[in-house]
Structures are given as C-alpha cells and as structure tokens.
C-alpha cells in the first residue's frame, strides 16, 4: 500500500498536472453477509439457547478421536523418554491421526461433518497414501490448522477445547491433553484401536509413508456411527453441560418434550417451528420463550434483508427517489395511504402453513426464505410486522429483545414504531425504507466499517438512490439446532431415524426440563 502523500507532496503533484484531472475511483469492496448489522444479536440469542456449539461440528466421534490423539502423543513421548512433548511434534502427530481418520471416512462415503474433503482426496486418497515425513506434509499440516483440520476454528476446534463447548481438551503451552472426565471415552477408543495402534502410523511420533489401505483398515474401528458406551456417556455429560453450557440441557429438554408429543419422527425444521410456537404446552417455558425470541430476531433479520433486496432491485435500473420507493412499497404491501402505522403493525401475518407469524415465527421465516425476496416485499413486510408483534406480546422483554441500539433490538424498535403509531402508512413506509433499510445499511456499510465505503450496496446521488450491487437472497442464519439434535442422537439422548428424530426411552430426562 502506497504511503499517503503529505500536503507539500500533494501540492507538487497537483501543480504538475497543470489543469483539471479525473478523480480516481474510491476503493470499494463488494460483498458482506451482514448488510444491516443485525446478526450479532441473533448470535447472542443462539449462544443462550445452544451455547458452545457451532453448525459445523455435529458428531461425537471426532471429539473422542482428537482427545485420543493428544493422549496418545503424550503417551508416546513418555515411552520415548522425552522430557516433554515438543509442540510441533505433538501437533503433527494429532493431525496425522486426524488425516487417517478423515481419509478412512472419505473412502467409506461417511464424511459428513468432517472438514477438508478436497485436500484429503487430492493428497491422500488419490496417491493411495501419504508420506508424513516430507516438507509437503509439513506445509499442508500448517495450512490445515486454519482449514481442513478437525482442530480448525471453523470445525471442531473451538468446541473441543475447554470452555462452553464439549470441552474435551485442555490447552497448555500450545499442546492439548484430555480432561479427566473424558478419559473413559479415550480408553474405550484405545481399546477399539487395539489391532492397529501398534502400527507406526499411530505408535510413533515420527512417521513416513502410510498407505491408504491402513486408513481403510482403521475405519471400521472408529466409525462415526459406532461410539462405545463409554464414549456415549462421556459425550452425554459434556453435551448436557454445566455452568454456562447448561442451557443446552434446557433446549434438549424442550426438544424431548416436542418429540414426546409427536407420533412420528420430526426433522429439525419441524422441531424448530414447534419450539418457537406460542400456542404449545411448552411455550411458557423460559427456554421456549428464549427460542421464540431468537426466531423472532431471525425473522426480523430475514424480513429486513429481504426488503433491502427489494430496494436494491428497484434501484438497479437507475436512480429512484425515496418518494417513488415509498409509493412502490405501499403498492407492494397493498395498504391505503390513510391507514395508520399502528393499524398496520397489528394486522395479521399469515404464513403458508395456515398459522400466523405471530404464533409461529419460524413458519413465516421459512416462507420468506423460500421466495424471491426482491419480488415479495409484502411477505417480507409481514415478517417485520410479526417479529414486532411477538416482541410486544412478550412485553418487550429487554432480556430477550434488548441489545446494542445500532443493531435494531426489537424492544427499541417496537417502542420507536409505537411512538409513531399514528403516522399514516405513507410515512411509515418511508420510515421503513429510509431508516430500517437504507439508513441502517449505509450506517453499517460505511459508518461502522471504519474504512470509508466498504461493502456499500446502494448510494444516494442525483436523482435518488442507485444500487451498486444487485439484489441477493437473505438466508436464515443456521441456529445450531441440527448440531444439537445430531449430537443428542450420538449421545443417546434422542433417537435418530431415517426421516427425523424421536424421543428415546433409554435415557432418563436430562436436567433442565420444566413442566
């Protein structure tokens, strides 16, 4: 990056031009997945419903494999008489175990939830094995730390470490070791690997070529779908959590109540909808209220981002004034100009499944996700309205709907719109466009980025608003429910069926349930 010129240097540069010069373009970076800055509050609510997990790490066995790998590395260092396990040696050994585990599963077609299939295919499966003593492996290993390894930040890494996640590994000076509570599972896996663990690939800190055949040989011994009883019990205790992670058991109890009420298996989408409904026997539970609040926030986000897509589509063919946008929005949502905002805000928000968004926010969320949002401003506006109604129905509870003012917390938004409840819909539509959509976007794209004009999608110029960026599609943020359900199934808390999940009768109710 060139060093900025000082004023004297600029004066000299300008003098050399001897006349008017074309203004260079401003740097601009297209992109960004959070055009309105709404996601962080949603993540906060997800953290409260399902703390410590992410959407990528949803099977139990990889956690145990990582714990075993680090335990084995320490055991081998001890066997070799090393005073301590060198950090690089430990990391490379654990990563080698991961590669063997990943490659076996990839070949067997059971790679789900594991990261880095392309690298494994190219560097291990295609050549028929890999030499773990080469500089190429060293370089790949370093790259895998960011992407491809189970320990990577976008995979199992955050959750496997001590904290709010599963917490199987304790960190110390760049190395890891299994926590005491995990040892029964580690020893159980060690027993499973009894027939292969003496192979150099698993029994030596330094290792050369390991053929793919060995990886295939290992696969049935540590298959994803065949955890031992000890592993299941350790996993269950970790999943139910304690302290800050205990909220997971409340959500699991809610899930079990929902499954208990169902006669057939329910998939994650159905469970999500039922958990968020306001008219079910469990709806009064605090965890269900939290879940509903989270889905209402999700609904608000997708509704507003959907409406922003509509604005971008409208302003893609040339500048459009705010007045024209306002008139178009009124036509799209089919309201009379004289209707008051308050009347509009309290009107029905039907969803495709016959429920009202106020009762079932996740239903309306699915509807908005399923349409071309830039052509369905009316539906998106329903989503906005339903999210506000839910907030109001739940007494604008600050603990559920509060948050940083510039991220449009629902409680604050509800209060603001109610203070203008008497506004005619023309003014209300203008407010939605100028403040909740464009204003919020411009603020987040340029005001908050601290770097001038990054991520800006629409600009104001002569004639009105002009889109710099075509309309896209806003998706609901994955809310970790699938991870919870899959881990719950691996840990024996619920049963996994072909077409969904059912309550298991083999495990007593976890803590956190409420009548």
């Amino acid at each position, binding site marked *: 990056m060139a060093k*900025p*010129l000082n*004023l004297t240097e*600029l*004066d000299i*540069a*300008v003098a050399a031009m001897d*006349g*008017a*010069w*074309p*203004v*260079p*373009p*401003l740097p601009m970076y297209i992109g960004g*997945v959070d055009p309105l*800055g709404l996601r*962080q509050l949603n*993540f*906060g609510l997800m*953290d409260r419903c399902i*703390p*410590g997990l*992410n959407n990528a790490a949803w099977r139990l066995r990889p956690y145990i494999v990582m714990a075993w790998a680090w335990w084995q590395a320490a055991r081998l260092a001890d066997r070799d008489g090393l005073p301590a396990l060198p950090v690089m040696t430990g990391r490379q050994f654990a990563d080698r175990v991961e590669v063997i585990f990943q490659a076996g599963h990839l070949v067997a077609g059971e790679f789900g939830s594991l990261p880095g299939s392309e690298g494994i295919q190219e560097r291990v499966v295609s050549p028929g094995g890999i030499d773990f003593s080469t500089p190429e492996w060293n370089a790949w290993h370093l790259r895998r730390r960011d992407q491809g390894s189970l320990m990577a930040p976008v995979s199992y*890494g*955050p959750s496997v470490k001590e904290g709010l996640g599963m917490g199987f590994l304790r960190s110390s000076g760049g190395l890891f070791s299994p926590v005491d509570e995990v040892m029964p599972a580690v020893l159980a896996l060690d027993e499973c690997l009894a027939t292969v663990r003496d192979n150099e690939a698993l029994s030596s800190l330094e290792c050369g070529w390991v053929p793919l055949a060995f990886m295939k040989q290992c696969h049935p011994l540590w298959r994803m779908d065949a955890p031992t009883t000890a592993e299941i019990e350790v996993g269950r205790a970790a999943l139910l959590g304690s302290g800050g992670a205990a909220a997971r058991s409340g959500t699991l109890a809610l899930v079990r109540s929902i499954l208990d009420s169902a006669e057939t298996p329910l998939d994650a989408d159905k469970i999500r909808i039922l958990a968020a409904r306001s008219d079910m026997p469990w709806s009064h539970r605090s965890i269900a209220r939290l879940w509903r609040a989270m889905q209402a926030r999700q609904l608000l986000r997708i509704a507003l981002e959907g409406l922003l897509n509509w604005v971008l589509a409208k302003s893609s063919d*040339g*500048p459009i004034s*705010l007045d024209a946008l306002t008139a178009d929005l009124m036509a799209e949502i089919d309201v009379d100009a004289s209707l008051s905002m308050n009347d509009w805000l309290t009107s029905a928000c039907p969803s495709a499944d016959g429920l009202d968004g106020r009762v079932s926010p996740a239903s309306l969320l699915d509807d908005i996700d399923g349409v071309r949002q830039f052509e369905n401003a009316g539906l998106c506006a329903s989503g906005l309205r339903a999210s506000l109604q839910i907030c109001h129905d739940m007494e604008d509870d600050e603990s559920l709907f509060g*948050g*940083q*003012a510039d991220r449009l*917390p629902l409680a604050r938004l509800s*209060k*603001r719109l109610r203070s*203008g409840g008497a506004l005619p819909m023309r003014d209300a539509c203008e407010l939605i466009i*100028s403040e909740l959509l*464009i*204003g*919020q976007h*411009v*603020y*987040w794209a*340029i*005001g908050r980025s*601290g770097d*001038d*004009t*990054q*991520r800006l999608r629409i600009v*104001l*110029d*002569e*004639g*009105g608003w*002009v889109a*710099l960026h075509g309309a896209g599609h806003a998706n609901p*943020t*994955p809310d*970790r429910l699938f991870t919870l359900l899959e881990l719950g199934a691996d840990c024996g808390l619920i049963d996994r069926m072909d077409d969904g999940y059912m309550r298991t009768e083999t495990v007593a109710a976890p803590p956190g349930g409420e009548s």
Partner: protein
Amino acid sequence: MGVHPLDVVRAGRWQRALFGTFALSLGFFEAAPLRALRRGGATDIRILADISGVAGSLGEAGAREVGRTYALDAIGVPTGCFHPKFVLLDGENGPRVLVGSGNLTFGGWGRNLELCEALTPEAAPAAFGDMADFLESLATSPRVDFPRSEVVGSWAATLRRLPATGEGDVRLLHSLDRSIAEQLVEMAAAAGGATGLLVASPYFGSANAVRSLADRLGVDRVQIHVSTALALAGRHYDFQADPRSEPVVIEYLDEGRAQRPMHAKLIEIICHDAVLMVSGSVNASGPALSTPNNVELAVVRRRAATSAARPFIGSLPSIPVHAQDSVSSAPPVLMATMVGRTLSGIVMASGSAGTWSARLDATGEFRDLGDVEVGTARRFEVAVAAGDEISFGSRRAILVLSRGEQRIAGFVTFPDLLELNRRWGTSAGAMLRVVGGSTEDEDMAGVLEYFARHPDETAAPWTGSRGARNEVEFVDNRVVPLGDLEIRPRSSAADITTSGWGVSSIDRLVAAIRRSIIGAGSVPGVAPPSGRDDHCDSNNKSDDPPPPPPARTDRVFEQLCEAYAGRVPSDPQTELHRLAELGLCVLARRPDAERFASFVSWWCGMAAPQLRCDHDRVDLRRLATLLVLVHGMNVGSPAGARRRIASVVGGVNEAIKDARSAIPQRLMLLIEEASAGIEALDEFTVRVYAERSSVEEMPSLLAAIRAETDPPPLTVLDSEPEMAQLRRRIAGGFASRVPIAGLAANSCPRCNIGLAQAEVERLRSVGLVVAKNCCGSVVVLDRSR
C-alpha cells in the same frame, strides 16, 4: 494517476472546512470526508447544499451527526439551482480550494468520472480573491434564498487576508451576477481571440448552449467529447443540430472498458495566445452556461496546449434513458435550530404562512409538538417539552411540519453543540459522539483523555450525586447563551447545587456523558459482549469488521487511574465514584476476568481506608457495595466483604439488598462475562449475610465504654486477642481511660506516641490494637470520628 480530493482532505491539519454541492449524501460525507477531517482536528465544518440536495439527504437515515458536529445550510435558487461543487479548507498550512464537477456524494467523489482542480494561494493567488468574491456575492445576492448567509462571511474574510493579487493564470468564475458564457467570451478576447472549442459534458439540454457560445466566440470548429457511459440522465450532444460539431474522444476522459459514468464538465477554448481550460460545475447547457439561472462555479486556467483528442468513429453509444425530476420541482425543506427548549426556524418555501402540525423525530421517538404558526416571513418557533436528551441524541433530529397533504421536513441544528465543537475542539466532538452512541476507541479515548487532563472541570456530575431518582426530578429550563460556552473557568464543585448538573453547556455535556456511562440500554462507548469469537463458526459469521481492540482507551484509562488516585484523599466520594463508573465503562468494552479483578481490587483497596458514603449518595453506596461484594467473591472472603461494606457504606444487610435491586448494566455484564457470574454472586451474598463483622459490633462496644458498663457478648470482637484485656479494664472501672481513636489516628490518643504501621493498619481493619510503644493500652477505633 490523479490526486483524490480525499487525499487533500486527509493530508492537512485543517481547522475549518466549507463544502458546496448540489446533490448531497450525508451518509457518504460522514463516512469519508468528515472522518478524515476529524482525524486532522477540524472542528468547524459546514456544508452548503442546494435545497433539493438537502431534501434528498433527509431520506438518508444513516447519517447521524448532522446539526451536532457539523452544520448544513440549504440554499434555494428560484431560477435554477445551487450547483457549485467545491471544498474550502483552512488550517495551519493555509487555505486550499478544491473545485470540481463532483457532488458531495459517493458518485461525485469517485464512482463517476469527475474532474477536479486543487488550488493553492501560491500557485493560484487570484483564484482565492475570486473565491472571496463568490462567497460575498452568495451572501448578498437577491437571486439566492440563503437564510443563514452570514455563515460565509468569516470564510470570505479569511480569503481576503491573503496577499492582494491581480491577474493570474488561474481564475474562478461564478454565475451569480453574469452568465459563465459571457465571461468566457471576454476572457477569450483577452487571450487573442478564439479559434476552436472543445467540450465535454454529460448534459447539453439542446445544442443551443454550445452553438451560442461558439457563435459568440466566433469559432467554426467545435469538438464534442463522446463517452460510452454518462451520469444519470446524461445525453449525447445533438450533432445533427449543429453542423459545425465534430465528435471526438478526449484521451484522458476515455477509460476504455472501465469507463465510469461521466459527470465531468470540461470546456476548452483554443485562443491565439493560450488555451482556456474551464472545469468545475458548468454543464454545456443553457441554465448553466448561457444564462445565469443556476449558481455555478468554474476554474479557468490558461494553458499552452489543448487536451489531446482523437476523432470519434462509429455510431454514438447507446445510453440508458432515465426519467429525472426537473430541478424546479425540488421539494421544500425547512431549517430549524434548537436552543434550550425552543425550536425555531424558517420554511424554505413560498406560501407557507399559516398553521401547521409539528412533529419532532429525535432520540428514537416521535414527539407531537402540536400546532405551529409560520409567519409571513416564513419563520416559526415552538417550545419542546424535553431537555438535553434531544441535543445529545444518538441520531439526527428531524422536524416535520404537515398541513393536509403538504409536508415539509428539515434537519434540526443545535448551535450550542456546534459552538462547543468549534471552540472546544476534538474533545467536544469525541464527547458528543460518545454521548450520541459512538463505540469507537478513538472517541472513548478522547473523552478519557480530557477527563485525565481536566479532573477539576469534569468532576461536577459526580459531586453530590443523589442517585437516579433525584436526577429525574431535576428539570433544567435554562438556555445557555453561546457566549457562556467557555472552557474555563469551570464551575467549582462547591457551586453545584443540583444533582450532577453544572452551570454551563460544558457541564451539561459532561453530565450527559455520565448519564450515558451509567444509563440503561446500550451505552455509548461500550461494546456489548461479542458472542463467542473464540469459536468462529463458518456458518454463523457476521461480516462486521472485527472490532479493533480498544487499546488506546485502555492505555488512557490507566493514565487516568494514576492521575485520579492522587485526588482521592481530597474528596473520596466524588473521585472514587467517578473512577468506579469510568472503570466499569472501560472494562465492559472488553470484559476480561484478570483486568476486572485487578481493577476491583485496586478500587476496594483505596476505598477501604478512605471512603465513607453519605446516606444520600445512593448511586455510590450501591456501587461500593457491589464492588466490595465482587472483590470479596474473587478472594473468597465473605467476612472481609461484610467488614468492608460495614465500614464504607454502613448497615450491611440493607446496603446489599438495596444494591442488588439496581445492579448497573455495565457491572452486571462484567459479573457475567468476567467474573464467576450472577449466580455465584448470589451464593456469595448468602455467605456474607451469615457473617458478622467487627465494624458492626464496634458501636455496641463504644456505647458500653462510654456508659462504663460491661460490653455485651460480641461474636467477632471477642475473638480478637485485645478484647480480653479490654474487658478486664472496663470491668475494673477504667472504662473512661480507654483510649479512643479516630480514623485518621496514627498514634496513641492518650500518650501521643506513634503507633507502628502494622498497629495502625490493625486498628483500621479490626478496630482494636495494643499501643505497644507507650502505655500498652488497648486503643479502640471510633469510625465516626
């Protein structure tokens, strides 16, 4: 590669800036030029914009600081529009003028193809005199509706102070008095007469303006630039209507496949003695060039050669057709100012006299202000039943007048805040932004730096605070004249008779900062917990820029703690209260267990020997109780916590109950995020309830000594080794000879012989100590002395 106007704005340490524009994007302005100016230290920033530009920017809710840290003036031109695009900068390196074709919008600053000139007094001395002429004419021209025209006077005066100049190779032309074309014809004649004309413009209207200019110049060769992309509603020149015209491509306006929408305006008149290069706002259209309908501003530069151009071959590129409102249909706007509780202003539209309904949109709420009478001079005034929360709001304030279908809106300006910003420099700006919701490290650090440098001037809000209940009751109806807005002398603490409110606008601003620091909801300068950034989630990602660590704030806060620690003995309640609230605010930006524990320990260490909370210091009592509880929890000492609360606050159970009923949001966040959590605090509190402390038993002991009777059983004190001796003395009838010391004592009250330091510390913590250096008596502490 050209120089970007933003480079010039960034490069200097400008104190003042004045912008002129037709179209206006305040969102862009606040993001780029304003940010750059602020970094350079500019405090007096103003935009002059056409009335339609102001009207358009009203729909841009992303802009938040208008009327608070910079001013915006609307200018109406009934015959056309206010069309110049310029930036005037003034600072320690002297003034600079930027004149170009780009509006103060994202498009005008680089998305479009625009032309720009940057002028210095050394290289273009005459142009600065011309700029002064323009501003003076703008302020006085009857063609212009410029209600606050006096604001440009100081700029004109600054430019006039530059060395007098005569002719020059670079001049500025404006169209307030005469058409641009007329002036160009004169200049061409002075340059030996014109022989050719080269024009680039996105707008021509018809071919008449160019043909007319060519006729008046007497040229028979006219070259017109053809671009593959034109700015909004741009049209190609009507070559068929003008047989003299010849399509060309000016080399430096041809960007090939990366061609931006051309909004540049360029006229080159080839004369016998020179080439006159005309750039700026002037389109090759009638209202801009031929007649003085619009207000335009152009740079005319004498050059030796014309710009390189090549013949355009082929058919004219297709240009999308856009409908565009004519400039004459610009919606009306109003300009309002709020001083104290009075909103006044002017409606920039004719026929506006009469009664209107007024609505104020500020601080996130709509306020119905009732009916407002607009006079024949278009002016109005209305009282607002609200106070500083509007001035210090976190978003722009907009006043809307409506009458039937008519609706006129405008920004509200707060002159006292602008004046504060101007006189008080960047500190005021940082404070205004923090109060307005900024979470930036730079702003928070700016506030703390000011607090560190000016501890006396910023103490008022913490001086004698009586808690939130009383603050609500306080109503400040005063209007502070601008002349009172001085930095010093500040009101002394003794003068403050109201709860945390000072007597000037600066006091009010500092008070607003305190309110924002302790207030409910999201607090300026405080970022909420960021979720779980330690486990990035490929699916759960927000593309918020990763917040930079508040390194500067942390650093400045350390300096502030150091500076304030020395002030604690002089006024422990004020200084410790202030330190606690500022500390919590800073720590909550980046919750960290070690930092939080360290701060609480440090604060309690200072509070224990020095702080005794008055009964009416409700906020301080609560805060002290909670901090002592947190510290006690951290070190696992319920007995110590009980003793400390008894010493610092008084009745322990009542203090805890009261404090737990109103835990400040910041502290709650820190307890959850950087401590053992609120449940652990609950458990610890139960343990504190179960404890007893020597401090609480001491009044019974002192009462017995004074009554010369045996003390009742004292659970805690009786376990201290000194008590057996003391009981014997009292039982022996020597109660009146028991030495009783005050909190400040460091010697035996009976012998006046100094106590060892360890003995002093024991006396202060336990309340009893044997004076080993002298009489060997048990000295008893009376904390009320």
